[in-house]
């Protein structure tokens, strides 16, 4: 079974971010970058499927040279090989879906697992768009994935409002990973050192025949409004009346 997993390089969710003076993106100097946490869950799930079924886990990332760090991180976790699409310009989710569709055509994986969204821009569209471009069935926001005994279908549990939904999709299919799908493993230190021996193929968008032209662009980023100080009330009655009339919560 061949599983393709996507990893995106994102700023560390725990880092304190500042917006660039032009207001279009964050300042990246001195910021630590990590594998998008949802993609890490996707890698873990791919490894677990491989460990049960045997097969190969291929990890793909798009970006400039630095994203190979995130590919290596996934290889250190246990993925078998990497594909690095070297592209330094700007892109939107549809461009990424187009690039991934070409990779899928080349690799012909049985399952493609993506994080449900990247934690930097929270778009969460690439998985859906990729399924549409390929005409593949999809199961988004997976909290549990099982492969049927005949290896022709995936049974996917999804967390929906107020309960769970279990879907069955035919392979090849697209799955996007939700938070509770699994807890990603730590890469062991010997595997980190060995990851550099694993192959990473470098491709360009031109060689894939994709013309990147983002239709969605960021116009402005702004920080959340600063919290205002609270007010002191004289009595419980005062508090209750303010909650009723001003906050309107009771």
């Amino acid at each position, binding site marked *: 079974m061949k599983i393709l997993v996507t990893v995106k390089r994102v700023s560390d969710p725990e880092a304190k971010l500042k917006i660039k003076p032009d207001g279009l993106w964050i300042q990246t100097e001195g910021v*630590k970058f990590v594998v998008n946490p949802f993609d890490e869950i996707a890698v873990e799930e791919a490894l677990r499927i491989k460990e049960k079924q045997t097969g190969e886990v291929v990890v793909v990332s798009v970006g400039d040279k630095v994203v*190979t*760090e995130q590919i290596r*991180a996934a290889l250190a976790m246990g993925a078998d090989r990497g594909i690095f699409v070297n592209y330094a310009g700007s892109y939107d989710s549809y461009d990424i879906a187009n690039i991934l569709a070409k990779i899928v055509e080349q690799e012909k994986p049985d399952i493609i697992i993506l994080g449900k969204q990247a934690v930097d821009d929270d778009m969460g569209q690439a998985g859906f768009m990729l399924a549409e471009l390929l005409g593949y069935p999809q199961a988004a926001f997976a909290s549990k994935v099982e492969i049927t005994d005949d290896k022709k279908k995936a049974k996917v549990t999804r967390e929906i409002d107020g309960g769970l939904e279990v879907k069955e999709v035919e392979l090849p299919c697209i799955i996007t990973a939700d938070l509770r799908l699994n807890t990603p493993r*730590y890469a*062991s*230190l*010997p595997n*980190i*050192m060995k990851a550099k021996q694993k192959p990473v193929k470098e491709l360009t968008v031109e060689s894939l025949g994709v013309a990147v032209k983002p239709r969605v662009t960021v116009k402005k980023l702004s920080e959340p409004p600063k919290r205002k100080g609270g007010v002191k009330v004289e009595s419980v009655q005062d508090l209750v009346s303010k909650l009723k009339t001003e906050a309107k919560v009771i």
Partner: protein
Amino acid sequence: MVSFELSEEQALLRDTCRDFALKVMRKQDRQSDESGEIPKEIVQQGHELGLTTGYLPEAYGGAGSELSAVNSVIVLEELAYGNLSMTLHILAPSLFNIPVMLYGGEEQKKKYFGMNKPDKFQGFTAALTEPAVRFDIEALKTTAYDAGDDFALNGEKAFVAIADSSLATLVFAKKGSGEGLAGIDGYILPAGAFAIKEREKNQGLRALKQFTISLDGSRVPKNEVLKLSGGFATLLARARTASTALTTGVCKAAYEYALNYSKERVAFGEPIASRQSIAFTLAEMATEVDAMRLMAWKSAWMLDKGMDAYKEAAMGKRYAADAAMFITRNATQILGGHGFVREHPVEMWYRDARSFAVSEFMAIV
């Protein structure tokens, strides 16, 4: 010349260990300090990270990572940044395995590396420090007498980590005729071959089980002797380099905590970090952390080059142990009353940091 730029793999080693330090070790550090017990799951998780046996050759069932002192000091700093007691417990098997790897015979490697399991933490340790007034490492009082077929060991060793749960202990002792460091060899004793006295009651490292052991004529067959052929000085250099890296980790933890506290704690209308006395102290603390890291890196780099790092490692350990007192004491001071109460970890780091000045051979690279 040298480069201070971490390779992609080294950066990943650092980040992985820091993550483990913050998300696993720090979650249980206070509880472990209070109870004197380290959760088994944490030790096992550290083992699965490859910390204990990752460097053992593949031919003996290990993962076959190259033994690199530079990589090790990067890892040790991050682990000690999490918790020193846990780090020393998880790394105790290296005190045994690394000397065997460097100086052991084929049979010894086969036997003991085979007892290390990739999927389960197995305890191993070493015994060096002695409970003597004016303990002098060059004049060990633990002796090995040639009794024909085997050696008879006599003496006492203190601060032996996890002696109660180790499958084998490497005891360093002096042969009757040996001179200085060159006369010291290692003697491998299985569990039960010596008496374990009561657990040490220490100011710091309260979660780490350490024991005094007593060797009252314990017999060691001749094929269980680890002949160091003068290599004890190298082992000491490797251990002192490890000590400097561990010190850097504990000090970085204390410095960062005090820094963040001083930016949030407001007194007389402004954060105390903007007071000169606090700011200057923090600047000095940061400088010292950086200095000790550089000393650890330097002696580690020399070891990897096959150079004699005996002097540099000793200077690093001495410098770091002193600076650690300055840094952790001032971290508790900056927190004021909060530095005294157990709610904040700085008092624990202060107690743990004391160990660096009084112990040898707590870890090895």
